[in-house]
């Protein structure tokens, strides 16, 4: 089986997640060896996936956790409608 660029693009996400079977992975790897464009698409997509997972992208407001737990303490203290 010889795959083209479009076929590789269809599997980028699954490839990044390790969710392609060994035969397809080998085909994609062979394609990436000689295709500059697909290599760059694969690398850039993986790079984006790694970057967006970083906690600095969506930062939590300062004091969020403290305010949450203070509020919960008040609920616990009220007691009547606990779990």
């Amino acid at each position, binding site marked *: 089986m010889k795959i083209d660029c479009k076929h590789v*693009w*269809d599997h*980028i*996400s*699954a490839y*990044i*997640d*390790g*969710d392609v079977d060994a035969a397809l992975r080998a085909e994609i790897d062979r394609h*990436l*060896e000689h295709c*500059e*464009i697909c*290599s*760059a*698409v694969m*690398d*850039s*997509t*993986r*790079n*984006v*996936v*790694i*970057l*967006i*997972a*970083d*906690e*600095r*992208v*969506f*930062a*939590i*407001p*300062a*004091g*969020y*956790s403290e*305010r*949450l*737990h*203070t*509020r*919960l303490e008040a*609920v*616990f203290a009220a007691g009547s*409608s*606990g*779990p």
Partner: protein
Amino acid sequence: MRSPGGLTIGCNLFLSKASTVCGTAIFNIFNEKFRRRICKRKGWQADNEQVTSAIKSGTPVGESSAETIVRILAGEAHLFHALIKPVERAVFVMLFMLLRNESDAEDVAQETFIKVFRNLRSFRGESKFSTWVLSITRNEGLAWLRKHASRPEEPLEPVLDDTSGDYTPALLTDWREVPLEALERKELGQHLCRAILNLPPIYRDVVQLRDIDELDVQETANVLGITAGSVKVRLHRARTMLQKELVPLLKEFAPASTRWGRGFFGRRV
């Protein structure tokens, strides 16, 4: 209670953190980050990570969420603090993405956790506690949006189905990896944040749960009430859309003199 930042919206959320990244360790950090993600998704998470997490959260080492819940239901309400610690961030981010307002998201997050506490008895353990909490969070966020329908809001229902559309990546030949340390530059975080928030809701949802909260495919499907297959299709399209949108913007954040790209995963160096 409201956050002092009040009406801060969107990517202004990005706050710079003190850098802990050494310039010479960029390559290792990339590898480690990716290894951790892959291991996590495959269920190979190292025991020591669990222990570390347990110590940080105050939960007795080895005690599962289910055991902690039993103790909370028996009257040890204070253990609820430790129980929800690991999911606090994900709840806020989910609500922020839905409500697009930091203060509203925090308010609804508090109400959500109170609801979780009061309904703890109905948690059956059929899913992970975190997945259950995120399902409640999503319902609370959507209910809030319905209640405040007069304000500009995004469509609640999917605007695209899973079979239509053209999802072609940005084609390029000269990609250079953007290292995590580049996130010290505020503008990079803003680009990423804006691109995610601008995704159509059905795609943004899967990106949030899979790539930000790092849930697995089935957990994501459970929270969203869709099939695992749909999660994969939507994630693929979402990542392609993000790549297409971000590649032109991210190039300037790549190191000027070092080409990380080809060598990173064993291809041409």
